[in-house]
């Protein structure tokens, strides 16, 4: 039987600046009816470009050099625009990464669903309305009637993604392209979306191309997995075997970088000297506004302590208050309740004297935002050295030492931030934190935006620095498998409350809080 989708030697360039950039090189690929093909690769590997090529929505400066893309027996590359519009949605659908940007903010959800069904299924308004209600009910959404009347910003990300998936499947296309549909969602919602995907796929037998940077996730969802590196298809294999017996060196690198809770990276035990203790800390952002009720506090009476040299993990969904704690500890947000550091009480940001500011450092999530674009790496590092370090004496030598400490060549001191990669920028930020020889470094989701391989190297760097300086880490993340590899203890936060504070080995015990159990279950260890 013919493949649903087949690409033959498809090659594509981008015309940017001086010379053309080769983005896809000689791609040959088939998707059989009812099959789910996973497409994995690091950022810049060309997987998204392939999706746009299939959907025939390439940017103006793209140049298709050779090859063919066929949907069933239709050659997509030769379709005139009018024909193209007719097959989109009807024969080939797409689900995007961020549900909130895929819906028109000024129109109700119902209208946008109806519009798709009327256009693609040729239904009348009445029938489309009934079908819409049926579809939404089918994807476990409470009270579809009410949802239809709401505006996109009035419903959660998870609900929006369910509606978009339901509509895509509702048009009964031959193939749906999924572009990282769970990345923008938090762990538990993401897991439920994957269950829904599996169920709908089984019921409708629709073929799918599932694109992601997470090899572990794809290996659970897809039948077959294709791995891409720098625009080339380096390996194709059944999902089960690809994880167990990766053939190509790139695949091996990806598999190795996937965090597995079972191989612990930290084996020592922290001392029991309490470095920092937080008692009933609650963070409130906006001041009381005139005529307006006070907003709910970001965190309610959170209490915990960090031992010297300990790695304390904080996990929870976005909006659970984990970043607020970090902001409170560094004086970026006002807080009520008390903090004791090395025994000294700290009531508010004003009490944080030079010693405290030196001892407690923070590394932020987005690498490109954390370095001042108008300063060279050398200037960025010189500032903390001047404030806390050895002073003027041998500043440039000191900067060179710091850079080598984070495995970057000393020559990088003269480089500008926009000349560095994401990983390199994060290393400079870490170097800046360690310039003050801190005793506690707060890492606020510092690995989230990085590729799996880069993430692994950063974790390895942090552990080496800890071994060298004895610093403690407050490691904030939503990646459960990663934290279970390195943390001594884990704090679980939910809607501003600390629901659990457990040593690492007690995580799977039965007395844990039900939310913690859901959280652990939502990130199963990779298959094989």
């Amino acid at each position, binding site marked *: 039987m013919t493949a649903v989708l087949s690409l033959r030697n498809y090659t594509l360039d981008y015309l940017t600046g001086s010379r053309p950039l080769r983005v896809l090189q000689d791609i040959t690929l088939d998707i059989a009816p009812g099959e789910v093909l996973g497409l994995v690769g690091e950022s810049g590997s060309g997987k998204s470009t392939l999706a746009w090529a299939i959907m025939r*929505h390439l940017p103006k400066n793209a140049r298709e050099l050779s090859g063919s893309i066929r949907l069933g027996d239709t050659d997509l590359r030769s379709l005139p625009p009018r024909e193209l519009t007719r097959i989109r*949605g009807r024969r080939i659908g797409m689900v995007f990464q961020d549900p909130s940007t895929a819906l028109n903010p000024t129109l109700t959800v119902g209208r946008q669903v109806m519009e798709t069904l009327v256009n693609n299924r040729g239904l009348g308004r009445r029938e489309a309305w009934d079908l819409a209600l049926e579809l939404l009910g089918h994807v476990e959404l409470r009270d579809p009637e009410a949802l239809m009347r709401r505006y996109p910003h009035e419903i959660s990300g998870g609900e929006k993604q369910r509606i978009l998936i339901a509509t895509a499947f509702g048009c009964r296309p031959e193939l749906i392209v999924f572009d990282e549909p769970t990345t923008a969602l938090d762990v538990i919602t993401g897991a439920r979306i994957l269950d829904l995907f599996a169920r709908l796929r089984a019921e409708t037998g629709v073929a799918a191309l599932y694109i992601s940077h997470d090899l572990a996730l794809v290996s659970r969802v897809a039948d077959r997995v294709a791995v891409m590196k720098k625009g080339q298809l380096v390996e194709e294999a059944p999902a089960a075997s690809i994880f167990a017996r990766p053939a190509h060196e790139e695949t091996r690198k990806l598999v190795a970088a996937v965090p597995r809770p079972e191989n612990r990276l930290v084996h020592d035990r922290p001392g029991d000297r309490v470095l920092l203790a937080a008692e009933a800390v609650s963070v409130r952002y906006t001041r009381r506004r005139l005529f307006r009720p006070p907003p709910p506090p970001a965190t309610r009476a959170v209490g915990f302590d960090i031992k010297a040299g300990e790695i304390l993990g904080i996990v929870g969904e976005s909006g659970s208050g984990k970043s607020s704690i970090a902001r409170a500890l560094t004086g970026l947000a006002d807080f009520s309740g008390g903090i004791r550091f090395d025994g000294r009480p700290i009531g508010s940001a004003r009490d944080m004297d030079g010693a405290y500011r030196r001892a407690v450092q923070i590394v932020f999530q987005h690498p490109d935002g954390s370095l001042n674009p108008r300063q060279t790496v050398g200037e960025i590092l010189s500032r903390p050295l001047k404030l806390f370090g050895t002073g003027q004496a041998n500043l440039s030598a000191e900067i060179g030492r710091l850079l080598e400490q984070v495995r970057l060549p000393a020559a990088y001191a003269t480089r500008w931030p926009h000349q560095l990669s994401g990983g390199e920028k994060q290393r400079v930020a870490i170097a800046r934190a360690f310039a003050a020889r801190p005793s506690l470094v707060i890492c606020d989701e510092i690995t989230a935006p990085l590729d799996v391989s880069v993430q692994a190297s950063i974790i390895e760097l942090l552990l080496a620095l800890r071994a060298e300086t004895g610093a403690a880490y407050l490691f904030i993340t939503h990646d459960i498998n990663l934290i279970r590899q390195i943390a001594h203890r884990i704090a679980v936060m939910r809607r501003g409350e600390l629901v659990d504070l457990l040593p690492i080995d007690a995580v799977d015990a039965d007395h844990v809080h039900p939310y913690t159990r859901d959280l652990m279950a939502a990130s199963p260890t990779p298959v094989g």
Partner: protein
Amino acid sequence: MSASWLLRRLALILYTVFIVSVLVFGITQALPADAAVTLLGENATAEALNAIRERLGLGDPIWWQYLRWVGHAATGDFGLSMRTGQPVGPEMLTALGRSLLLAVAAILVMLVIAVPLGMVAAVRQGKLADMATGLISYLGVSFPEFVTATLLAMLLADTLQWLPATGYVSPLEDFGGAVRHLALPVLTASLILVAHVARMVRSETLDVLHSDYIRAARLKGLPERTVLVRHALRNALLPVVTIVALDVGYLLGGIIVIEEIFAIPGIGRQLMVAVTARDLPSIQAGALIMSATYAVANTLADVAYAVLDKRIRYD
């Protein structure tokens, strides 16, 4: 859209009016040569000057003059014009009416021209229509009002004699005449606005066209026309609302020159005359009314924006 928000916006308008009153009152006190001198001119003798200053209360200390003035203004009595002896309040309000008539007409004409022009330029980015709009908007933005006004008056009124050059006829008395008389000034004002707004509509539309939900709409198979009309047009027009509010502010200021040339006794020109004649009550009343109108226009724009775009929540 709650009552507390409206209450706060009202407080904001009052605050704006207060700041303007202090600003204008302060500046006018520092004007060299007070109203008495301008009234008497060459015939000013010492005792005559004092008599007039007494009558106009210019002799009292500044803060007392300010308090007295604010007290009266609160009750709507802006005092008598030092120049014509007429009560200033009603005079300035009718003048505001004429200015608003001109401003609203200019804005309507502008919207009819600028919005489609901007959209076409965005949709056909880089092609001829886009270049043409670019040229028109650059030219429109680069000629000061009084140059455009003079050239247009020279062309339409004098050489072609299609339209009367100047003079103002109130629409209540003779509607036809009013339209003919307002045609030229409205055309001048709207030409300048078209230049500003067409560029803004073009960039807003470009932003919308590059947005994710438009891409999503296209990829879910909607025909291009539906995507443009039902999705793009609506969201691109939203910011036009705030632009129009800003234009009201600009028009009230920029119109001074147009009113001067086309002899329209709007609030802009009344203020010009008041400043040259150092007629304090008129200056203060005019400035207050102008800035209050601008503040109200801004509030209305925000309300309209919230009604159109549900994302905006004023709680």
